[in-house]
């Protein structure tokens, strides 16, 4: 009997040993089978996930450290379909709290696409609403713990950052905006998008806590410090909007720049938009160039360009301020005639009178005497027809026809000299005019004062674009412009401060014909004359007025008056007295 049990036990032991041996063989076989790689891959796939870490977008400050563009927390509200207990509750809460359509949410929850385990219900939900939903979810979970009905189980909240603009419309034309996809459009946001956005990194994040590692620190995007002065910007926008209302102009632009270093202190264009509601863009602007007229919109500037013609004539040695000529009321050039703005003959005029009275004939004559080569060489030196390179997206290059172009005619030499047949942007003319205010040195206009990256600040140095005229010529023309303003009692003058400037009234061509009742009114000026600290450009499009001196000049005066207060610039007498002490 004992032997019988022993033999049975041996047989059983043999069976189990054989089974164990088979299992071992199978383990080894699987390790080296053709499917082994696929199994390994499958295991790896579920052991973690590749996660893309997006750095926080850099902030934008004005020159005094006021935040112009920052970030705020918003939520992606989603639902884990397996965990939903009551679709009705979820749909109802989304409808009430997030103003979503109940039927749409409910149907999506009831009939989700095949294989879907997680569904995004709404993204970019403001914090308050997301927190309200979270509270509701917690309350329902507590109150209806046993029955589970109603329940918001399955709702999940994924926090992330979204661009926000605390100043709303302030500086909108220069700043641009960031869309929900995180890409910058227009202005600084587009120009410096790569710097601001930083470099995202994709890392493998294991699910197992045993393999958890510290995520790499992704440096946030660079912070930008702009040259804009918030107070000046606000004042300029206010003045521009008031001017548009008073003159019934269709649009307008005011730019304030430091002519010594090219720093843009304010850049206002109409209309402004609340950058937090960037989805309204298409209803506010008809095309992209309207977003910032100061850099994107080119136009015939009219008489403001005479300062460049006169600078070329003075610098080339053709004339001096006291040089006179006889104005007969017309001038023949290239087979055509040019006339003064009033079609009158102004008799004997010196060069200052030529500027003071804004005489077209004088300018056409100067250009003609200089000759096309000299004249266009100077205009090219002033950068006309080329983008300035300002650090804003969408800059237009303007148009300067030159000899050799198919559409250039000899008469263009005369008309270009007083601002017809040439297209410029306000920033182009300011850049060119900076040579006059800055001892002949033309500066690079820019908005970036500096950038802060990894705790270090890197400032933008002043860049000189060229020296189109000599320092002496620059001072001479500036003095002539100041004298011209004083001679004709310009409304631009400011008591206690000597300023230099020039108006520009340009009829607007439509279908090749200049319209008598549609003008672009401009004014460019700078001051104080002996130590220029600001340059102002005013452009009003189609105001209800005949001459820029009635509409653009007072606006310049108002801006200058505001600037001397905000920039703490003492009157000339006080300044000279303080300098003498």
């Amino acid at each position, binding site marked *: 009997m004992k032997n019988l049990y022993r033999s049975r036990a041996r047989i059983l032991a043999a069976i189990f040993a054989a089974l164990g041996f088979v299992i071992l063989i199978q383990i080894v076989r699987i390790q080296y089978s053709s499917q082994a790689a696929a199994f390994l891959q499958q295991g790896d796939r579920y052991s973690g996930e590749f996660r893309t870490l997006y750095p926080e977008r850099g902030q934008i400050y004005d020159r005094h450290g006021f935040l112009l563009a920052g970030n705020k927390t918003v939520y992606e509200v989603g639902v884990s379909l397996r965990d939903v207990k009551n679709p009705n509750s979820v749909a109802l809460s989304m409808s009430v709290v997030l103003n979503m359509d109940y039927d749409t949410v409910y149907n999506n929850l009831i009939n989700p696409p095949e294989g879907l385990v997680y569904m995004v219900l709404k993204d970019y939900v403001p914090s308050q609403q997301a927190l309200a939903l979270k509270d509701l979810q917690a309350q329902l979970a507590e109150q209806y713990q046993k029955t589970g009905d109603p329940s918001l189980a399955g709702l999940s909240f994924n926090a992330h950052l979204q661009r926000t603009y605390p*100043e709303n419309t302030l500086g909108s034309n220069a700043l641009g905006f960031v869309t929900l996809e995180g890409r910058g459009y227009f202005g600084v946001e587009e120009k410096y998008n790569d710097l601001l956005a930083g470099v995202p990194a994709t890392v493998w994040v294991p699910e197992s*806590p045993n393999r958890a590692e510290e995520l790499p620190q992704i440096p946030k995007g660079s912070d930008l410090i702009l040259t804009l002065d918030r107070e000046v910007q606000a004042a300029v926008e206010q003045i521009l909007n008031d001017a548009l209302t008073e003159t019934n102009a269709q649009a307008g632009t005011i730019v304030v720049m430091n002519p010594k270093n090219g720093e843009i202190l304010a850049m206002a264009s109409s209309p402004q938009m609340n950058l937090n509601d960037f989805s309204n863009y298409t209803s506010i602007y008809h095309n992209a160039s309207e977003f910032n007229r100061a850099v994107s919109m080119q136009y015939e500037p009219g008489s403001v360009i005479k300062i460049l013609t006169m600078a070329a004539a003075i610098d080339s040695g053709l004339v001096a301020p006291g040089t006179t000529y006889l104005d007969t009321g017309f001038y023949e050039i290239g087979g055509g005639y040019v006339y003064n703005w009033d079609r009158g003959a102004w008799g004997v005029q010196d060069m200052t009178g030529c500027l003071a009275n804004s005489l077209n004939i004088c300018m056409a004559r100067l250009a003609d005497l200089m000759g096309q080569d000299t004249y266009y060489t100077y205009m090219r030196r002033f950068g006309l027809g080329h983008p300035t390179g300002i650090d804003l997206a969408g800059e237009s290059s303007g148009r300067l026809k030159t000899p050799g172009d198919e559409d250039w005619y000899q008469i263009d030499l005369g008309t270009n000299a007083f601002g017809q047949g040439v297209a410029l942007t306000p920033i182009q003319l300011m850049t060119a005019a900076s040579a006059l205010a800055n001892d002949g040195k033309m500066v690079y206009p820019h908005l970036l004062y500096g950038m802060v990256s990894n705790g270090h600040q890197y400032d933008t140095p002043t860049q000189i674009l060229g020296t189109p005229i000599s320092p002496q010529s620059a001072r001479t023309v500036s003095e002539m412009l100041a004298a011209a303003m004083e001679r004709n009692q310009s409304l631009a003058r400011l008591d206690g401060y000597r300023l230099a400037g020039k108006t520009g009234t340009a009829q607007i061509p439509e279908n090749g014909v200049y319209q008598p009742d549609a003008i672009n009114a401009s004014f460019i000026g700078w001051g104080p004359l002996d130590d220029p600290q600001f340059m102002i450009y005013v452009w009003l499009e189609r105001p209800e007025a005949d001459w820029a001196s009635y509409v653009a000049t007072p606006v310049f005066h108002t801006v200058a008056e505001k600037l001397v207060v905000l920039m703490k610039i003492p009157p000339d007498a006080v300044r000279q007295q303080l300098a003498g002490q």
Partner: protein
Amino acid sequence: MTASAPVRSRGARRTFAAYLEAVSSLDAGFSLPPALRQQWLVMFAGAVAILAVLAGLYLDVSSRAAISGRDIQSLELAIAANERSNADLETQLASLLSNQTFEARAVALGYQPLTRDDLDYVLVPGYIPDNSVHLTMESQQEGRIANEPAFQQSLLEWIAQQLESASAPLPQ
């Protein structure tokens, strides 16, 4: 119809023979003297105990690693939440200090915009306005602390110093 008898291969026969021999050995083991058998049992129990201790240690270490891993993951989440909170607070502060808000408060308090006529300029000897912009803390000097060594002497030097001070004569 023919039926062939199962044929055992030579290899199978050998394997079976080896198995029978092993089983016989095990049987022989049961027939060992009690003292020797006890010795075997104690050794076996000891081996099992050592294995259990090792397994326990492994479990302890791995559970600690898992807890640390969870801590890391929750800290990562906390860091991200703090960064978002910082951004939120900075934006809220900027909204409170925005130009529009300031202007509204100033008007509500009865302030008037400054005009040129309200200004008086006085000379302050030695005052030079600083118009530069600094958004970073230049005085931070991050590198200095990091470059300073935590210890100024080696372990041997330290021991020598301790011995020296211990063997020094007591002050009178």
